């Protein structure tokens, strides 16, 4: 056996070239990360744009989280490419008919926007540290301040205007970026499992719930680590947001699957065989049962009974953790599931991910972990917890 690739076992008839999986676990991780970017930004915008004061305790953490995830987003793609050194070809000579050609521009634009918004938000801290700190760290903050030390009320008003404008532009930018990821899959007519007009919307709503869930987990964990009480109105607000968007997501996924079955186009028999067989555990049990239905029931119960205190914190955090898992499974079931159903419509394949190697499970775990390692460093440099009067 050639060691350069791993051939997948199959049943029925699949095209010979299909036996080597084109998009591996790294392409599962890629939309997962972009989803976290968009979702975390949504939480930040609820405060920055819509002025919802209850989200203030997490607004800056959300923005920093979004940036950390965004900085890692290109990594799974670069690891996946056969020639990562040619990656910029798509930007230098974009093939305008390709949905993928826009990625470099969309991601670049959004990353700059995020960096700018973070800069404005953390500018008071940067200026304070630039004036206080000495040595390399002092240099770091002084360079980052770009020579602007003005923290007067007028300057802060000006900053707030910029933050608002960037946050407003960021909403379509963040959601457009993730909706486009859904379009990359939904627009492919070669696979019935992917080919759906609803795919961008499903990706978008699942992104929002994954980002909100991530913020819940990060906020609760950070409060524990910093030994400060959790702001319950803020947590409740995020729980309501999660609950509401979960309803939308489940509804959209349900409608998408119903229309796939109802249309009953060629190959539907094999899709149903897949759904009733290999997909039972990853979809019905893990994604839908454990990851979606269970947290939805827990959240509904807590909202209905008006539960508060430590039980609320534990219940919401556990639900959020399960939702994070569900969205990861959703990405898996889309990306891997689509490829396990053969293009022939007459066979099924079975993906066994490698553990080691460029496209192995360990690489994927490293990519998913990287934003949080980065975040743990960033919160030390730019503490998102401070809410003094000068913080925008």
């Amino acid at each position, binding site marked *: 056996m050639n060691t350069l690739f791993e*051939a997948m076992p199959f049943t029925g*008839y699949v095209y*010979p*070239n299909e036996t080597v999986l084109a998009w591996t676990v790294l392409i599962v991780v890629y939309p997962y990360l972009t989803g976290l970017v968009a979702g975390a930004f949504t939480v930040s915008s609820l405060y920055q744009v819509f002025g919802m004061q209850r989200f203030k305790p997490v607004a800056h953490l959300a923005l920093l989280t979004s940036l950390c995830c965004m900085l890692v987003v290109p990594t799974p793609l670069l690891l996946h490419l056969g020639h990562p050194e040619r990656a910029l*070809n798509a930007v230098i000579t974009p093939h305008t008919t*390709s949905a993928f050609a826009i990625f470099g521009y969309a991601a670049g634009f959004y990353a700059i926007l995020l960096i700018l918004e973070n800069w404005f938000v953390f500018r008071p801290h940067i200026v304070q540290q630039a004036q206080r700190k000495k040595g390399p760290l002092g240099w770091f903050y002084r360079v980052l301040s770009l020579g602007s030390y003005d923290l007067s009320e007028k300057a802060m008003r000006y900053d707030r205007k910029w933050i608002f404008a960037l946050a407003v532009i960021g909403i379509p930018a963040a959601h457009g970026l993730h909706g486009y990821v859904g379009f990359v899959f939904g627009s492919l007519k*070669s696979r019935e499992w992917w080919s759906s007009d609803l795919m961008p919307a499903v990706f978008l709503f699942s992104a929002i719930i994954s980002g909100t869930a991530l913020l819940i987990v990060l906020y609760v964990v950070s409060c524990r680590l910093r030994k400060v009480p959790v702001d319950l109105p803020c947590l409740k607000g995020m729980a309501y947001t999660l609950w509401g968007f979960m309803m939308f997501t489940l509804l959209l996924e349900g409608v998408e699957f119903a229309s796939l079955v109802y249309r009953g186009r060629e190959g539907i028999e094999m899709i149903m065989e897949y759904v009733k067989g290999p997909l039972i555990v990853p979809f019905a049990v893990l994604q839908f049962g454990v990851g979606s239905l269970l947290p939805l029931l827990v959240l509904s119960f807590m909202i209905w009974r008006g539960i508060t205190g430590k039980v609320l914190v534990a219940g919401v955090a556990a639900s959020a953790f399960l939702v994070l898992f569900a969205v990861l499974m959703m990405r898996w079931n889309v990306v891997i599931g689509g490829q396990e159903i053969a293009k022939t419509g007459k066979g099924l394949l079975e993906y066994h991910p490698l553990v080691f190697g460029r496209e192995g499970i360990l690489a994927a775990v490293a990519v998913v972990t990287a934003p949080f390692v980065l975040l743990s460093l960033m919160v030390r440099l730019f503490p998102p917890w401070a809410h003094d009067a000068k913080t925008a």
Partner: protein
Amino acid sequence: MAVKAVVPEAHAATGPTPPPAIPGYDWTQHRWGFGVDATKCIGCLRCVEACKRENDVAADAHHFRTWVERYVYLEGEDKPRIDSHHDPVNIEASGSEGEYRFANRYKDAKVEKAFFVPKLCNHCTHPACVQVCPTGATYKTEDGVVLIDHNYCIGCQYCVQACPYGARFFNERKQVTDKCTWCYHRITKGLQPACVEVCPVGARIFGDLKDKQSPISQFIRNNRTYVLRPESGNAPNVYYVGIDKDVV
């Protein structure tokens, strides 16, 4: 004939190194087409072997620029049994993944109908693979062939996903996508694609659609032909004779 440089349109104004000009070849004067007469194919697989050697395709059972499918209808069954070279039974019968042979697995069964279907890239008029390529490394030539610039491909495999025919694969040695070129290096020198040349029964037909007397023009004119998955909108350019509705 005037010498005209073959420069892919997608790259001419952009950047990648254009392929070298082919002396004496003007791609505006040709439009290539391919025919398959499935009633003639005997499943000898000389075409598969020739293609692998001619184009340096990995000698295994999972990478093919062209392959042959076998459709067997057994008595009492309403769906055909389909297999090809990646089937473990065929690999075992061949002796290795680098040899290609159909196992005589139905010798004791009551076969109602059976036939072979050679498959290859359809060099579509509206190729989905070209549409999705983010860099333009895969492109449609003036003479109707879909090619890949291996020096410009980034290896994202979006095109592999987009092809409804499973005609594309990832070349692990070069780390780029790969597929049938109708032996572009041969046809631009007046030769036949390797698979067509070695076919002992004339099941593969190739020629210039602009030439009314070419084998492909006559094949299309004299037969009622069919293309695979016409509903895809890709407008494929491999014309089939003698296949059933169950052919995938």
